[in-house]
């Protein structure tokens, strides 16, 4: 896990996620998927 994230690193991570998300939406659009779950997490009390 990264604890010392700099402003530049954060920018790169954001760009990477944005590109990945765009690719995934494109795939969903081309294959006709309307809802794909990507993460399920238990909420602890």
């Amino acid at each position, binding site marked *: 896990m990264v604890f010392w994230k700099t402003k530049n690193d*954060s920018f790169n991570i954001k760009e990477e996620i944005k590109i990945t998300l765009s690719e995934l939406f494109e795939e969903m659009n081309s294959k006709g998927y309307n*809802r794909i*779950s990507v993460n399920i997490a238990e*909420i602890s009390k």
Partner: protein
Amino acid sequence: MNVTPYYPSELFVSDEISLMKDKKSYQIASLVLGGVPGVVNYPSFGFECINRIRLFPLLPNMDDTSPLYYASTPSFYSLDDAVNIMVDSYFSSSELKAGFVKGVKEYNRITSELFSKNCVYDSLKKLEEKNTYSDKIFDDLILRTK
């Protein structure tokens, strides 16, 4: 009792069902393309996040997937907001891709189950048989006219 609308039980993914059976509260995050017909509509594509808090109502025992057991709070985010949320929660692009692959498998499983439950495969097979039969008649006609 506050009952909020949620997806029908046929659309639940297997991890979700196991959390419901264990009586857990959970959050489900999904990528959506304008919504799911007949359930929800969104203005565009985006990131859907639903918090489902388990309730323990004083009611007779019901099916584990009953909507009376959960208070659902949906949120919808645009692409930019989704990116910020993922960065803030240390959700990497590789985790996102892995989650997506798993989600697609679940989507295909659910679609396949819905198709077989509603006899779509049988209807398609009948249609195919009908088509081959009509093709045969058509071929015979062509042969006769030659």
